[in-house]
């Protein structure tokens, strides 16, 4: 018990704790710890704690709070949706245009009513420079459509008339010179056109003449004729069904009509061609003021 001697009184008396259950009960009876005042205070503390806790637990809520969304939210959402859709459509169109094959696009522009594979292409450039310092008129005719004899019955000549005026002239005179240029590559067509492009004010007018190609038969006032139009669009020949006689001819496109040269280049006959469908068309001969109906000739009765 050396340890007890080293303890002070307080340390020693703190050893009173740690009793067994039965000893605790005995001490509680022997030394009653609570006076009536203490008991009342403890009861009050218990009641306070019970009330506080029950109050916290007893809080109830009821009803439904209706959430009202701001009115502008609907409009903002609609506007955002429209904007997103518009951006999507514009983006799609932009990508489609930029990613498409430019050469295919050119070909598409060159074909008018014709469909199918192109077998040849022509450029007829008519370029006149009468006085560069005063007036310039440029007429470009380009048969931009090519056809096969069986599928496409015509070749289309597109004529672009560009009028250019310089500021130093007081009067404008238009002069036209025709020059035939045949090219295979449509890109060359563009190059030629670009070379003849004037630098000042330009007015462009486009006219298309569809010259027939292949075998045709026609009838005018009871006379039947068989025709062959060359596939290069340069001309052809015909003969009468009754006599078997005929002539060869060349043909040019001039603005909105065709010019036939029967027999010799000096002889010119203007004609307006009206297409009804791919198997029939009509020619109105300006010289005789007659109307001749053409139909496809599947028998090819005229020799090539």
């Amino acid at each position, binding site marked *: *018990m050396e340890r*007890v*001697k080293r303890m002070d*009184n*307080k*340390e*020693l*008396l*703190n*050893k*009173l*704790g*740690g*009793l067994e*259950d039965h*000893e*605790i*009960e005995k*001490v*509680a*009876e022997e*030394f*009653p*710890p*609570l*006076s009536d005042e*203490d*008991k009342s*205070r*403890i*009861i009050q*503390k*218990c*009641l306070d*704690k*019970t009330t506080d*806790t029950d109050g916290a637990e007893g809080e109830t809520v009821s009803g439904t709070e209706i959430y009202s969304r701001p009115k502008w939210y609907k409009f903002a959402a609609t506007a955002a949706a429209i904007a997103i859709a518009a951006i999507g459509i514009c983006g799609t169109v932009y990508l489609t245009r930029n990613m498409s094959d430019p050469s295919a696009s050119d070909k598409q522009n060159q074909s008018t009513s014709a469909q199918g594979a192109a077998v040849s292409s022509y450029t007829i450039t008519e370029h006149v420079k009468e006085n560069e310092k005063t007036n310039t008129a440029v007429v470009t005719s380009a048969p931009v459509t090519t056809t096969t004899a069986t599928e496409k019955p015509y070749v289309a000549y597109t004529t672009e008339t560009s009028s250019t005026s310089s500021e130093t002239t007081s009067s404008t005179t238009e002069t036209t010179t025709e020059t035939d240029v045949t090219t295979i590559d449509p890109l060359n067509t563009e190059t030629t056109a670009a070379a003849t492009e004037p630098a000042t004010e330009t007015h462009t007018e486009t006219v298309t003449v569809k010259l027939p190609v292949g075998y045709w038969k026609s009838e005018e006032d009871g006379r039947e004729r068989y025709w062959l139009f060359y596939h290069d669009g340069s001309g052809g020949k015909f003969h009468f069904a009754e006599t078997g006689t005929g002539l060869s001819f060349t043909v040019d496109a001039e603005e909105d009509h065709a010019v036939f040269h029967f027999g010799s280049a000096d002889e010119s006959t203007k004609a307006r061609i009206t297409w009804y469908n791919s198997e029939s068309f009509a020619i109105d001969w300006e010289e005789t003021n007659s109307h001749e109906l053409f139909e496809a000739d599947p028998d090819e009765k005229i020799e090539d």
Partner: protein
Amino acid sequence: MTDTEWADILKSSPKEAYGKLVECFGGLVYTIAADKLAGCASKDDIEDCVSDIFVEIFRSSDKYSPDNGNIKTFISTIAKRRAIDAFRQLSRKYSTTEYIDDPDCAPLPNSPDDTENEAEENILRGTLWEAVRSLGKPDSTIIVYQYYYGMTVADIASRLKMTAAAVQKRSLRARDKIKSLIGKGEENG
């Protein structure tokens, strides 16, 4: 009062239940709390612990059945568990951490398998209580109230209807006497 009656009382109003519980078991619950909190709690801390115990007993009324045991066992179990929780809370609150290198550090508590020391503590506790009881009243009451129940000299004076100075003087003499009694008993043993 039978256990069945107590079961009914626990289900009655809080005021009635607390009144009867504190009247019958207040001393026991207070003593259990004081025993577990000995040396580390004031009288207010013990009273708070006691009130918490009674609140828990009241709230656990549905868990009590007379078939499972008597009411005293039920109350003692809750009281001991709750007092141990309070001891842990107060230990943290008063930051009772000490470093073992510190010369003023109290001896470490016995490990569970330290049977020899535990036996020594039990013998010392028994000897101490014998010495306290041998003082006779009111000195034994003063020592128990002061060092076991954690009361102040003023509270003890009020309870015993004595002056604080008289309580202080008696306490001082009682402590010396206890120490001499224990020392004498050791010499005789």
